[in-house]
């Protein structure tokens, strides 16, 4: 087993909501609310969840683009949030990020050479000044772009190529950890596969560890060794890729997996689908107890009061961490035969969907 390179412990990020004439704090958006995990050397940890679950905030916290409300991140034995000045700058070199939108994350007024070379301006000791152009060209070559295009501007590239530029910038300083925040979601399917392949190739060549944040479950499954499922600022389930996708025990994971359309029409009426009622509640006013209880078909009184801990729970074969009082395995994706029982179950869930949802939709639950 490889050793952890990054350990997050009980990370919390609350954003204050200001209201009234005096701009007093009237509440908090609990974007990330107690998340702990380890990232091992050379592995890919996928983070999945719906919009508003806090996965991007988590990425920003790990970059220290945001200061956490509480909690700690230990990177390579160093406590990240207690570093300042030069030590912090040195640390930043080892953790880099690739952003989601290749259209807005590149400065349109700078050439590709300037964009990819900018990390060298901030960390001048990485590459000597006269070697920078060569270094940038090597990076372009490495991500599959023509090194002669160094003087072009971002608008002269397509979406997939721009994402390659973003990746080149991310790996320019030879980081140990690359945080990828939805790196392929803005891309077309045919181009998406190219970028995923590139990221896997770079991981092999450079020994990178990835935190791969995405909402596309099949891409995450393809690239990840381990996967964490987030819901409203908390980790609902965490485990090896085959544990999460093959034997999920948290109802949310099960519903999420069942909702993913499978590109095979022959499974159309055979796969069981759990249609969840309502929308994700607002993180400004998350439900008490288990945050999923308002949409969960297994919810009992206990779920409304007691917060379930992310701890090892049996999944039928072994055990892996899941934050549900009633965690139990249930085949989701690979189900082919559907018993009568499951059909009845589907109908039940549908019925509930037509009931009123308890959340006020008008309150900050907008998506997209």
């Amino acid at each position, binding site marked *: 087993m490889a050793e952890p390179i990054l350990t997050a412990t009980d990370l919390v990020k609350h954003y204050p909501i200001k209201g009234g004439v005096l701009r007093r704090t009237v509440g908090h958006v609990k974007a990330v609310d107690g998340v702990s995990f380890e990232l091992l050397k050379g592995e890919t940890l996928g983070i999945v969840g*719906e*919009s508003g679950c806090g996965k991007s905030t988590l990425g920003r916290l790990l970059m220290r683009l945001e200061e956490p409300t509480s909690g700690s991140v230990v990177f390579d034995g160093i406590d990240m949030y207690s570093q300042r000045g030069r030590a912090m700058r040195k640390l930043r070199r080892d953790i880099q990020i690739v952003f989601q939108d290749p259209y807005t994350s590149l400065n349109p007024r700078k050439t590709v050479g300037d964009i990819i070379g900018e990390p060298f301006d901030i960390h001048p000791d990485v590459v000597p000044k006269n070697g920078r152009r060569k270094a940038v060209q090597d990076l372009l070559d490495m991500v599959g772009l023509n090194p002669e295009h160094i003087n072009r501007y971002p608008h002269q590239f*397509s979406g*997939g*190529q721009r994402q390659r530029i973003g990746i080149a910038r991310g790996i320019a300083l030879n980081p140990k950890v690359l945080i990828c925040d939805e790196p392929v979601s803005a891309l*077309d*399917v*045919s*181009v*998406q*596969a*190219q970028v*995923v*392949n590139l990221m*896997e190739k770079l991981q092999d060549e450079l020994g990178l560890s990835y935190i791969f944040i995405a*909402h596309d*479950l*099949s*891409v995450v*499954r*393809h*690239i990840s060794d381990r996967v964490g499922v987030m819901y409203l600022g908390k980790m609902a389930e965490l485990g090896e*890729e085959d544990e999460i996708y093959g034997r999920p025990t948290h109802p949310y994971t099960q*519903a*999420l997996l*069942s*909702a*993913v*359309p*499978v*590109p*095979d*029409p*022959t*499974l*159309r009426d055979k796969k069981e*689908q759990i*249609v*969840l009622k309502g*929308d*994700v509640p607002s993180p400004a006013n998350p439900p008490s107890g288990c945050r999923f209880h308002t949409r969960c078909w297994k919810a009992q009184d206990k779920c409304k009061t007691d917060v379930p801990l992310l701890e090892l729970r049996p999944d039928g074969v072994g055990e892996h961490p899941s934050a549900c009082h009633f965690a139990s395995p249930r085949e989701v994706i690979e189900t082919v035969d559907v018993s009568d029982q499951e059909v009845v179950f589907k109908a039940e869930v549908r019925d509930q*969907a*037509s*009931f*009123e*949802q308890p959340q006020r*939709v*008008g309150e900050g*639950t*907008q*998506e*997209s």
Partner: protein
Amino acid sequence: MTTDTQTRKSETPATSQYKPVDGLLLEVEDLRVEFHTEDGVAKAINGVNFDLHEGETLAILGESGSGKSVTAQAIMGILDMPPAVIPGGQIRYCGQDLLTMPEEQRRKTRGPEISMVFQDALSSLNPVFPVGWQIAEMFRKHRGMNKSDSLERAVKLMQRVQIPAAKERVKAYPHQFSGGMRQRIMIAMAIALDPAVLIADEPTTALDVTVQAQIMSLLQELQEERQMGLILITHDLGVVADVADKIAVMYAGRIVERADVFDLYRQPAHPYTKGLLESIPRLDQKGQQLAAIGGLPPNLMRIPAGCAFNPRCRYAQDICREERPELLTVAPGRESACHFAEEVLHG
């Protein structure tokens, strides 16, 4: 459910002058659309043919820039002209060509006969009017109903698309709804006048998966209930597999393959379709490279000669660079625009 949801039945009967023959609703023939811009002419659609029957779901599948949304806009008659120009083709609705129809008559088809759900519900709804008022507008403008009757109908529609507490929410504004609820409101508006054809342009792309599942099952339910012809425009191969009957795959403004959904997924007959299907991450490919399609979709101002897909195609020969393949029948019910369709299909 409520009683106002039966097949093409309306409390205010609109005497539709259109009667589908043998269930055939829409025929698109050799449609072409160009955009005349300062930088040149972008050929967005270059000869598209398809038809749609009652109760049928046709998926138009394609990546950005393939012309799938422009096709929908041309059918709806909502292209900005200029810059768009329609140099040729016909769009026949129940036998009548929409493109040559006077605007007055066209307006009467838009809504009662053919309507559309857009991708981005937030920017498609007017932020300064309550949603109920916006739904009711359909009844006021097209059916001449008064304010209170039309609002009553709006509430019923909101209930039909499963918006909780519809009576209280009818006066709420778009920003007070979540993304999924807004899309339901868009659907309510689209089905308000019992259209025979519903076009859904990426209806779930901006939504989360769990919400996407809700919206797709609602659309399917409504289609079955009203026997609408549904054109689903999407880039998501998973969504298509779940709901479509027939598929038309578009690339660079042309349909490159057309087939029944089961046939297409089992055995694609065009290299582009094949490449698309192979580039989805699959279980048994874990740890391997994804079979990506190399290269990039073409610039619509400089579409390659011959087959537009030839620079990215692994089957490409000299003939592909010279001669444009026509969409031909390669097997019963299957058409492919590829010189080597046989090889792709059986190889």
